[in-house]
């Protein structure tokens, strides 16, 4: 069945990607043409169409680099430098992944705790829940520098400030899903447990927690993606430290468009890997009992 689905999707996805690639090349010619003419070709005098296309595909500082340029840059930035060198993109991906995962775990704990409190306390449900929703309207991404400085003044430096920002973005989906999930047990199931005269703690572990898992995992996938975005943005203001966000920033700073693009692609790959990680954990925990 899944084999079948895979094949069903393969052809359309491949087709669309191919169309996208072609469009990309055309767009690159169109976008880069002006700059190429002004800075590369015009100084040399007369030029032909072929020269224009070739030049737009191999520009130093393109407005839109073409895919093979990016692929090449990715390749060199992964394989041409030792793994522990700051020139290696994998190192930066690793740094970002570390902060994201730390923040994600922190967010998981915080979100879970909040959800448990909210489900068990009417006061917190009424008083806190609206503020948790409002908290997500605060553009933490914009206040990342302030958070970094406040945390810095409290002696928290290094990876933790970034992880804190990631946590801020992660905890929300977790809380919302957990609140929903912990309340998911039907009245019937709650009453059943009640006739056994189970304690609150027993009810939590025997009924509420297991029934919240199906809600939790989809939210975890959302959370880790949000956390990654948070980490990357938290890496922007600190500038040239390690991490994909720093690569984005310095790429922009040194006018290295290719570097921006490879950092973006790497971030995308990292996002996919991290979500796959969550999916794998989900499969391990609930996979085999999922309904057919």
């Amino acid at each position, binding site marked *: 069945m899944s084999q079948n689905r895979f094949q069903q999707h393969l052809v359309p996805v491949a087709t669309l990607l191919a169309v996208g690639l072609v469009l990309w090349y055309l767009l690159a010619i169109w976008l880069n043409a002006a700059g190429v003419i002004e800075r590369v070709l015009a100084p040399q005098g007369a030029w032909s169409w072929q020269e224009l296309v070739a030049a737009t595909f191999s520009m130093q500082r393109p407005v839109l680099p073409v895919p093979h340029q990016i692929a090449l840059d990715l390749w060199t930035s992964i394989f041409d430098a030792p793994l522990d060198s700051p020139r290696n993109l994998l190192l930066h991906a690793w740094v970002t992944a570390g902060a994201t995962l730390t923040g994600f775990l922190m967010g998981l704990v915080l979100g879970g705790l909040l959800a448990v409190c909210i489900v068990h306390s009417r006061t917190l449900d009424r008083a806190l829940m609206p503020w948790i929703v409002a908290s997500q309207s605060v553009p933490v991404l914009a206040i990342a520098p302030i958070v970094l400085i406040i945390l810095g003044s409290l002696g928290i430096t290094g990876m933790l400030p970034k992880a804190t920002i990631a946590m801020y973005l992660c905890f929300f989906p977790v809380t919302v899903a957990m609140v929903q999930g912990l309340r998911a047990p*039907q009245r*019937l*199931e709650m*009453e*059943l*447990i*009640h*006739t*056994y*005269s*189970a304690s609150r703690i*027993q009810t939590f572990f*025997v*009924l509420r927690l*297991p*029934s919240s*898992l199906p809600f939790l995992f989809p939210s975890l996938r959302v959370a880790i993606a949000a956390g990654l975005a948070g980490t990357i943005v938290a890496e922007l203001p600190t500038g040239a430290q390690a991490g994909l966000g720093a690569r984005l920033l310095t790429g922009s700073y040194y006018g290295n468009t290719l570097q921006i693009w490879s950092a973006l692609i790497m971030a995308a790959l990292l996002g996919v890997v991290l979500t796959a990680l969550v999916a794998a954990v989900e499969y391990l925990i*609930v996979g085999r*009992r999922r*309904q*057919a």
Partner: protein
Amino acid sequence: MNAPHPTELQASPHSALETPVARPAVVARKASVIYQAADRPVHALSEIDFTINRGEFVSLIGPSGCGKTTLLRVIADLEPITSGEVLVNGMTPSDARERRAYGYVFQAPALFPWRTVLANVMLPLQLIGRSKAECEAIAREQLGRVGLAGFEKKYPWQLSGGMQQRVSIARALGFEPKILMMDEPFGALDEITRDKLNEQLQQLWLRERRTVVFVTHSIAEAVYLSTRIVVMSPRPGRIVKVIESPLPFERDLSIRDTPEFTRLAQEVREALAEGHQ
């Protein structure tokens, strides 16, 4: 009130019914339940008076909304009474619940999908802190009794609706409740499965002689299973008639074609119709 029965042995719990001082499992005195609905209060139960003796199989029957479920819930401490008194084994329902007096079987099986069949049956036993081995032994035994030996490792959603309901009954029985409460346990099943389960339940009761309070919509089911049938009527919920069953305790499905059965069913139907006015 209780006609002694030829098949009855003196030693069985049912013999209690025959002694002059019956041992009551449930006593309700002028018990009323009023729901505060949005617009106006609903009299779900109105001054109910009745007694269920130990070892009886009592069915509650009545039209939708007459308060059958409410009565069951009151007995099981799932709903407080507004006035009057309900005693279970001489205690308040709440105390009885704390002493694990109840096994409750709902209309839906209410099994936990993340637990295997075995683990579902073990659940109530684990909650009261029985050892794992003990839980498992009891659960296996109960599953055997409802004919589900060999299905221990399955998950609920791998079973048919009828099998699920049997798991739910095994779970309630494993708890060794003093009183088994069943709220339309077979309502969602098809007729054939239902017949089978009716038969099994009857045999089970015959074997164990637990007190059973059973809610149903089906006249045939009520007549087939019960030693006593309580007919209720709505608005406000009250008891119209209590019918003692003259049928022998040992029954099989063919009893449904006997004239006695038909007469009893007719009596119930008339009582129902009466209450329906």
